[in-house]
């Protein structure tokens, strides 16, 4: 869309493109990416299951089974079969969507908030504060993240809240590093200096002028971070250290089904597929966002 604009001397008419907000620009680009849209559709479906799952599940996902019906393969009555306690697998997998989304979003939300605070303070102030905070982050990065999460779970105890805390803590340094790097690149920009010159306090400059300008890489990292959080939660559940039965968490279901998987493969197959598709959806969406936000691959 163009409009005609006259210059100061009214001598010539210059066609200029009307401004489009960066977010609209990103969305337009994202819409072109079929893989990202496929990912977004799966995420949408998951959100739908998470919000309305309790109205959709054909059976009670927690206590709806009887031992007489245990370990049945897929049938018309139970599309994905039943588990070792005779509970309907489809109902449990639908119920698991809410748990996975909750853990993924909460863990990334907590890690991102803490990481953003640490990274922004370190990058903005620099000097000794930066050195101390980043060395602390280095120490946390000196552990394989899953191993550190397992160690935290061993002392915090099992359960969904502790799984969220453990996964958040181990991923804080990754966000802190990205935010710090981005803050360093924007803090000398003129708009930040102007905000400082008119007497804005540091917290206001960081919150209103620095952070909004470093959001793109953080959004991409957070989207991909959700998939990693879901994978890590399922790993903790599988090892028996995460969300505890009878809660229908996919990794915990896989761990419980492992004992029966020689004669009831579906106990392992379907929760694994649910995890794979969920993680794949967030990966596709994250990759699509990265491409849409990366100025180097913008066309025209």
């Amino acid at each position, binding site marked *: 869309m163009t409009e005609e604009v006259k210059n100061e001397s009214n001598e010539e008419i210059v066609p200029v493109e009307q401004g489009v907000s960066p977010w609209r620009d990103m969305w337009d680009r994202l819409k072109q990416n079929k893989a990202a849209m496929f990912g977004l559709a799966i995420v949408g479906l998951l959100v739908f299951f998470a919000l309305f799952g309790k109205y959709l599940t054909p059976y009670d996902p927690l206590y709806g089974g009887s031992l007489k019906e245990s370990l049945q393969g897929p049938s018309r009555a139970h599309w994905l079969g039943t588990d070792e306690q005779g509970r309907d697998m489809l109902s449990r997998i639908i119920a698991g969507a809410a748990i996975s989304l909750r853990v993924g979003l909460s863990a990334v939300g907590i890690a991102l908030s803490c990481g953003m605070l640490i990274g922004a303070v370190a990058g903005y102030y620099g000097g000794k504060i930066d050195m101390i905070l980043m*060395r*602390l982050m*280095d*120490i*946390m990065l*000196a*552990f*394989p*993240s*899953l*191993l*550190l999460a*397992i*160690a*935290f*779970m*061993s*002392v*915090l105890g099992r359960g969904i809240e502790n799984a969220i805390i453990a996964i958040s803590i181990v991923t804080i340094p990754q966000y802190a590093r990205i935010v710090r790097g981005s803050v360093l690149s924007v803090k000398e920009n003129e708009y930040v200096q102007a905000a400082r010159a008119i007497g804005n306090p540091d917290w206001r400059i960081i919150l209103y002028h620095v952070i909004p300008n470093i959001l793109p890489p953080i959004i991409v990292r957070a989207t991909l971070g959700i*998939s990693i959080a879901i*994978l890590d939660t*399922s*790993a903790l559940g*599988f*090892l*028996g*250290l995460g969300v505890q039965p009878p809660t229908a968490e996919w*990794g915990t279901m*896989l761990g419980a089904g*492992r004992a029966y*998987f*020689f004669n009831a*493969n579906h106990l*392992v*197959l379907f*929760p*694994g597929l649910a*995890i*794979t*598709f969920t*993680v*794949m959806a967030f*990966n*596709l969406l994250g990759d699509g966002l990265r491409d849409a936000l990366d100025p180097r691959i913008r066309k025209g």
Partner: protein
Amino acid sequence: MGKYILRRLLYLIPVVFGVSVLVFTVMHLFTSDPALTILGQHATDADAAALREELGFNLPLVQQYWNFLTGMLHGNFGTSLFTHTPVFTEVMSRFPATIELALFAIIFASVVGVTLGVISAVRRNTIFDYASMTISLMGVSMPIFWLGLIMIVVFSLKLGWFPVSGRIQMGYDPAHVTGLYILDSILTGNTAAFKSAVEHIILPGTALAMYSMAIIARMTRSTMLETLGQDYIRTARAKGIEERLVIVRHALRNAMIPIVTVIGLQMGGLLGGAVLTETVFSWPGVGSYTVESILKSDYPVVQGTVMMMSIIFVLVNLGVDLIYSVLDPRIKYS
């Protein structure tokens, strides 16, 4: 270069010190009483107090940390609450199994990942590209423990190609040289042991490698695409050099730095992933030992293994950094 290595080694001291403080603090502030873990909840106060004194748990925290730190410097990472064996001995006896698994996985991931990435880049937007990138997408999305279980069902139970679990068939252990069974069986010329060790490592090694393979393939593709667009590639083609040589000698060699970076980063991740793979395949390594200790609440073992694993992780990362200088002489260490 020598100065750089020395500086990096000195830098490890505060990091390892910080790691020790973190591990010790977490293990001592949040865990339940180790004396009650051993004796059970019905132990008398007198018995629990006596055991605390015997194990040194009654000392002030600072004193306990000092003992932990000085012990560690002497190679003493604590003693198991249940088996009373030193953690260091237990970890070192299992360490070759984990390293063998991780090495197999990283070699597999690098060879397959780089190949897939190069094919994708060279045959961009063809069926080969889509197939390679779909495999990569699945690799980063599948939980490795699930993949391991599916592999057991398909390749062990249904097809009978590979054993379900373990590291080698009973009675086939090769003579000890390095502790790495495949290498030891080659060094001692023991073909039966070699065959058994390879058969046992294929499934867990491949399951562990999948995630890293996918990351390496994605990185190789994007770096190769960037490199293939450079002027020197056009020049090489204009000079009439065979396309295969242009890709391998001119493009791939220049794309290797970021690829090696990713391979190095994956090496550390494999140590974490080994915890899951070893559990699924009953692989007798450090990872499965850590999980067993956590499930038994054997805190000194958890503390010792986490500490040792993180030191190994830091050293692996340092090693990767040093390899860069060999690969890329443009990198200057000051």
